[in-house]
């Protein structure tokens, strides 16, 4: 689980049926302590329509990303699971 900032949207009409109706975002992983960008941006699926451009989100990667979908199966590598309001 990583903190990331949504920096863009990926538009695609032709998608595998498992991710139909799910938006895809370009997210930049950030350091949770000083909020500085780190590593390269990745594409994350948003199965529960939580995020918009500019938001900070919690991203899960690898096997756990598929669990974010109601079907429990989707060919994705990263999913958005929380929209961050604030960090105490």
């Amino acid at each position: 689980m990583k903190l990331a900032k949504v920096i863009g949207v990926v538009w695609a009409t032709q998608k595998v049926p498992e991710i139909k109706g799910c938006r895809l975002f370009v997210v930049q992983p950030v350091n949770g302590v000083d909020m500085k960008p780190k590593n390269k941006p990745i594409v994350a699926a948003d199965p529960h329509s939580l995020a918009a451009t500019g938001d900070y989100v919690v991203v899960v990667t690898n096997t756990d990303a598929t669990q974010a979908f109601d079907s429990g199966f989707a060919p994705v590598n990263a999913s958005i699971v929380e929209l961050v309001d604030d960090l105490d």
Partner: protein
Amino acid sequence: MFLARVKRKVVASAKHPAYNGKRVFVVQTVNPEGKEKGEEWLAMDYVSAGIGDIVVCGGAPGVAKDIFKLDLAPIRTLIIAIVERIDYKDGNRYCTVQLR
């Protein structure tokens, strides 16, 4: 598994149903002396940790699903222990760090 210090709490209102009623913290890995080493992760609380605690974090696919008894759990890293004391060997010296 890794040793980490709890740094911040993530406050979120819109979340995946599996995250309802659970706390997520920003944790930063530390070396055995308790000094912050750099890399930070997000981890879900399972032992009622607080900000500033040294904790053990870990996780594997499917673990969160079993312990929270959920059908779908997009959760990886969990805070699985709050550290009280660390004994380690630094060269030929045996060291103890008492945290609470």
